[in-house]
């Protein structure tokens, strides 16, 4: 039995390392692009790097077997939200933001606080140890459209409707705030 299993394990291991390598690359790309978004003074470039960031996260989704979510990430986030942001940037003709920001003290304090928080969070996530992982096999059809659709229209039917409520509120609100009034 062992003899049979060993090559299978080796193959699996090879596959896994491949996946992991891809994950590492995607993760680093995500971090770097995220950093550019935050640091760059030109908002348009920031937005473009946001797309890169979202796409690399989508790649990570796919590598984590969340195929449908990867697709949605590309479609909704990169496709809709960022496009909306870029549209507004263009509309307002926002370019480089003016110089001058917070003083050095504030920057330093924020950096320290941010590092402290990241440190705490990293410490927290490192404690993650799913108990039954060894020997566990992914559920049949994990991360597919059918599985998600089934969940959405069964258990998650009600929250799904609530999301629509939020979207309606946002829509009405956006129109209310951004539309030129008829009487103007």
């Amino acid at each position, binding site marked *: 039995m062992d003899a049979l299993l060993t090559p299978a394990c080796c193959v699996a291991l090879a596959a896994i390392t491949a996946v992991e390598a891809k994950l590492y690359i995607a993760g680093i790309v995500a971090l770097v692009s995220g950093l550019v978004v935050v640091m760059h003074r030109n908002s348009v470039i920031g937005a473009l790097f946001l797309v890169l960031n979202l796409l690399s996260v989508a790649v990570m989704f796919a590598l984590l077997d969340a195929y449908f979510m990867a697709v949605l990430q590309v479609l909704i986030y990169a496709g809709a939200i960022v496009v909306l942001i870029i549209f507004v940037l263009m509309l307002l003709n926002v370019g480089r933001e003016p110089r001058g920001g917070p003083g050095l003290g504030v920057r330093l304090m924020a950096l320290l606080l941010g590092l402290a*928080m990241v440190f705490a969070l990293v410490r927290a996530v490192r404690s993650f140890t799913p108990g039954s992982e060894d020997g566990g096999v992914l559920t049949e059809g994990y991360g597919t459209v059918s599985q998600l659709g089934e969940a959405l229209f069964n258990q998650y039917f009600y929250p799904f409707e609530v999301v629509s409520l939020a979207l309606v509120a946002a829509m009405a609100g956006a129109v209310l705030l951004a539309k030129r009034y008829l009487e103007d």
Partner: protein
Amino acid sequence: MLPYLLLIPLAPLLGFVLVGVLGASGLLTDRWVHRIAVAASLAALVFSCAAVWEFSSGLDHLVPLAEEDPGRFLVQPDEGDSPARFSVTYAPWIPLGDTLLRGWSSTGERTASLTVGWTLSFDALTAIMLLVVAGVGTLIHVYSIGYMAGDPGYSRFFAYMNLFMAMMLTLVLGGNILVMFIGWEGVGLCSFLLISYYYDQVFDRESGLTCADAGRKAFITNRIGDMAFVLGGLLLLITFGTFDFYAISDAIDGSSEFWYASLLLTGVGLLLFIGATGKSAQIPLYVWLPDAMAGPTPVSALIHAATMVTAGVYMLARMSSLFWHAPGAMLVVAVVGCLTAVFAATMGMAQYDIKKALAYSTVSQLGYMFLGAGVGAFVAAIFHLVTHAFFKACLFLGSGSVILRAGHSNDMRLYGGLKKWMPVTYATFLISTLAIAGFPLMSGFMSKDEILARSLFSTRGHTLLWLFGTFGAVMTSFYMFRAVYMTFHGENRSPEWVRHQLKESPRVMTGVLAVLAAGALFVGFLGVPEGVSKLVGLGNVNWFEHQLHPVVAARGVVAAASHGEHGGQAGVDTHEDPAADSAYASALTADEATGHGEPQALEIDVIREGLVAHPTLGQEWALFGVGLGVFLAGLGLASWAYGNNMRRAAAMAGSLGFVRRLLHRKWFVDELYDKLVIGPFKALCRGADAIDRTVVDGAVNLAGILTEISGQVIKLFQTGVVRHYAVWLLAGTVLVLWIVMG
């Protein structure tokens, strides 16, 4: 009447609503305003009298009613050890359900109900307070008709006065700490509203305080005391599982030996006392009372002399069984009261503002009441409260009468010789002065000297307390006669235009003065001290003590005290002994056997339960002599200084213009004052004043200023920039993460 006790505070409350709403919307003429207000107050008085009448004719007929409706009434007719009392719960107020209490009784754990009801209760103490509050209150309402006539805020004034009456009556009638607390906070609020009545007038030129500032100071200082009061109450609640006064007393009395001198009771007692110092203007929270004179004079008379400021004394008497079992707390009460009495008296001597002089006098007299309570003479303290209500109200109203006619000036240097124009005011003022200064057989003599005697002879008293108290009494006599001389004797020093319009106040005011003066004369006979009656060969004719003693008596304390001395730290190991009596008996025998302790003192204690000794006849005579001497010393000093001064001042009045004459005279008075209070005494007065202004006042102000400054500093963080807010959010997140993750 007793089941309808609610009507007593409701009547003035209704008056407040009517006068407030209708008056503010301009629907009432002044005439109807005071008609309604006085009627409301009078109604409270009538209801109170009816309740007292029913109470004094026995509670037995109420008992069957109680059986029908056990939740509502609680009746305990006068029997055996416990005094007659009655309480009625109209509705539940705060239902907090049951809780488990553990620890102090032999049964270990027990459940207590934390439900608080709208309870009013009635006993002899309540009866006396009700009559004083409603009676003096009504009189002052009547007086205000004359004093406030033509004031633009007529309806506002009467509305607040009615509200005050409602709150004060609630305070007195409240059957548990929370209901009392409503009145407690409510009178503070009304006091604030009425002090700030002339909101925009600068009332203290030196510091530029406006009346509104004075009101705010009073309110905040009171709130500090209130906080301590609430803490003490909550501690009681946690300990005894109830807010009900009677239940707490019974619980303490019921296991005297356990509670005697325990740390918990001492702590609670001290907290309650801090609450009382806030309301009753004792060291260190007295600072607001002299400033409170910014209010109209009837307010000073009613709130800051006769009723509200005595609430602290009333509360101490209400909680007397707690204080009996907390000798440490009682000692603090006595010492603080004694110090306040002396300290305030020294300051009273330095005042030219007649109302401020009276205010310091009030602080001083309140100090005597606390001294009385502190040495266990609760009856005498309450008695002094009653007599003080009469003579101090009369003094304040008399000063109001003077102020009204003397061009609305409070400055005694601008009075003089007023007895010619205002004979009734003068006569009543003089009678009250005699009373407060302790002229033999007048009310102040009866009550104050009784307190002093008890402070000397009570086992909880001390010679030093008596010495200081007597010293203060000399000063009392001095500053009061000083006021009389400066105001009514000598030559008039008023401005010309004032002198032309000097005349007696209207009948409605003098009538009230006369009634109050009669009270100052005769109320004393209700509580002739045993010593005094003995001097003239009568038995104990102290009606007051007879009525009140059962309410404030020390039940079981003697036994507990002696037990504590012999049985070790607390009664924990011995509290299963049969009854307090036998415990006491065994203690006595133990005493004799071992020769320990002070059997002599204990024997004396037994005689009077109240831990107060019987002085001998000779001692009584000596005390009487000292009292008379005190009175005469003050009178003599004052007449030497001020009688003289006024004559000499009159001689000095030459052809100089008014202003220069005035300046001269001021300087003269000052110099004479310097001569009189030569050396250390002057330094003492100045020092006391300086301490008042800098240390005590300063501490209160400093706390306020520091808070304000820190507010201004923290305000700078609110920059309006989203980014900075985000940094704070981040900081908070790190903080929470750090706390939670450790």
